[in-house]
């Protein structure tokens, strides 16, 4: 009540001040300067942090990538494109890049499909909503340390639950993380368990934005739940799927925490991600300049994917 009274009073007064301001241009310019000043005061804390901890590191990182700077403080002289030349001919760099892409390919499909299945089932309005959401999303809340510890134990070849299940099914036990053929797969399984809940919630939110009237109308026309899902739900999930795919690809490309910890910090040729190689080059081999160069090769990959995605989604909008 009171607010609406003030608002209507304000409307009249705004008109008065408005005309007064246009009658006196000098005063208006003064208030514009004041507005500028206040704006920058609001922006300053964020912009200072933004400049110090984001813009400057990007610029300084480019500079470092052209030097032989070491973590120990030694070096620092300009080496031109030597680091980039070395990176692009470094088999370990390409192997890490491939591992990262391979992990992204392996993890993205289940992380999207299982999330969709979970959301579609929960969206049916079955009893126990609270429990479903907790079960599927809870792992996402756990630190990488915690999930790594749990899965290292599950994948333990002698006493782990994974091999118990294989034995119960009459299959041969696997060495999981110890075997270069299965260690990436093990990391993918743990990652799907860990992070699928995030995509599940995004899908659930998208599904719950579909007006229930559409289902009611379809139901009156005799469409069953299956038909409703294919003809109403799925077609309207396009934008959500694009978003989930983009977020998932960008997240998967940053693989490090769980891969590093599940292998106990040991570098394995079949699981070393590009972020792990950046870490190893900088903090194990102390080569800051080289590490910075690899960082920018990786950044270039992210930008290319980002731009490609922007082009694709623009195309979709035009169509």
């Amino acid at each position: 009540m009171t607010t609406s009274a003030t608002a209507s009073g304000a409307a009249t007064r705004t008109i008065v001040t408005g005309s007064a301001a246009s009658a006196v241009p000098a005063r208006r310019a003064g208030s514009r300067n004041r507005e500028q000043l206040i704006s920058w005061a609001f922006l300053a804390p964020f912009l200072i942090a933004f400049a110090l901890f984001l813009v400057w590191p990007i610029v300084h990182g480019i500079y470092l990538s052209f030097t032989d700077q070491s973590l120990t403080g030694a070096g620092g002289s300009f080496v031109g494109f030597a680091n980039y030349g070395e990176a692009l001919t470094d088999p370990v760099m390409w192997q890490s890049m491939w591992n990262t892409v391979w992990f992204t390919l392996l993890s993205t499909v289940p992380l999207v499909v299982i999330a969709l299945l979970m959301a579609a089932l929960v969206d049916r309005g079955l009893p126990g909503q609270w429990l479903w959401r907790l079960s599927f999303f809870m792992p996402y809340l756990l630190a990488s340390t915690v999930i790594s510890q749990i899965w290292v134990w599950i994948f333990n070849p002698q006493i782990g639950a994974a091999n118990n299940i294989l034995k119960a099914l009459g299959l041969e036990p696997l060495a999981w993380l110890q075997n270069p053929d299965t260690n990436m797969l093990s990391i993918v399984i743990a990652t799907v368990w860990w992070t699928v809940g995030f995509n599940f919630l995004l899908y659930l939110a998208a599904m719950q934005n579909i007006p229930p009237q559409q289902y009611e109308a379809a139901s009156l026309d005799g469409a069953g739940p299956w038909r409703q899902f294919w003809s109403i739900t799925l077609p309207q999930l396009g934008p959500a799927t694009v978003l989930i795919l983009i977020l998932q690809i960008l997240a998967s490309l940053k693989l490090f925490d769980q891969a590093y910890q599940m292998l106990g910090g040991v570098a394995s040729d079949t699981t070393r991600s590009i972020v792990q190689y950046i870490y190893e080059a900088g903090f194990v081999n102390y080569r800051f300049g080289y590490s910075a160069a690899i960082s920018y090769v990786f950044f270039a990959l992210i930008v290319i994917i980002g731009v490609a995605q922007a082009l694709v989604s623009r195309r979709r909008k035009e169509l």
Partner: protein
Amino acid sequence: MSTATLSHTQAITAPGARRRRRPHLPGQKPFGLLRVTAFVVLALLAIGWLLPFLWAIATAFKTETDAASGDPSWIGATGPTVEAFTAILSQGNVYTWAFNSLWTSAAITLITLAISALAAYAFSRMDFTGRKWLFVVVIASIIVPPQVLIIPLFYQMLTFNMIDTHWGLILPQVVAPAMVFILKRFFDAIPIELEDAARVDGASRFRIFWSIVLPLSRPILASVAIFVFIGAWNNFLWPFLVINDTTLMTLPVGLQTVISAYGVQYAQVMAQAVLAALPLIIVFIIFQKQIVKGVATSGFGGQ
């Protein structure tokens, strides 16, 4: 009056807050075959997702001998015990790490929220030179993965003498362009009339921001805060790099360093995992609605 405003701005997907959908539609049997199948599949998935954690809990309550025996039963041969928990908790570092995690995550959340909200308000409501391109720069920076910056950031922390300090851990984590974007979009949806009224009454810009805009934005601020907090609490790479002093470590980094010390003491490792997971699970159970909404808004905001 304000309820109308909120429902307008709250239109940003809130799955948790939604009414239960169509339990009984005309022509739909409550116990139809499809419904029962859906329930069974859902239950199986949920069990699959809970099992790893339940195994961890079961193992945490076993003796080390039972845990290492490979016996898959839920309760060890010697019966349940809290030995593993007492062993973990008798080591003082766990409390220190939990406290470090709590205070650094809280500091990151508060600073991020404060500086992002101020900037978002300026972008949403104020008229200043270069507003458009500056906003484009901030939004474009969302794509920069923090992992790419670890080398120059570490170098910077060396020159600032902030290696092995909590400020060195906190400050690089407070820049969150995505949060500025999410908050700006929310502020955009608040009717300007509410502010005009106060403005004409002579309230300063900051006063308007503080006593009109912020109270109206409580739901989104809660979502952003919870989300930033979870991210900070679980962050591994940066705290792992910048902190070497055991007494300054956060929980994830600290726990990681003692795994090798425990060797094959599975019960203790699992007890530790359960303890470290507990705070956030409690937080989730309490704030479920806000967290679910936070994922939806921050996800749709482009992470």
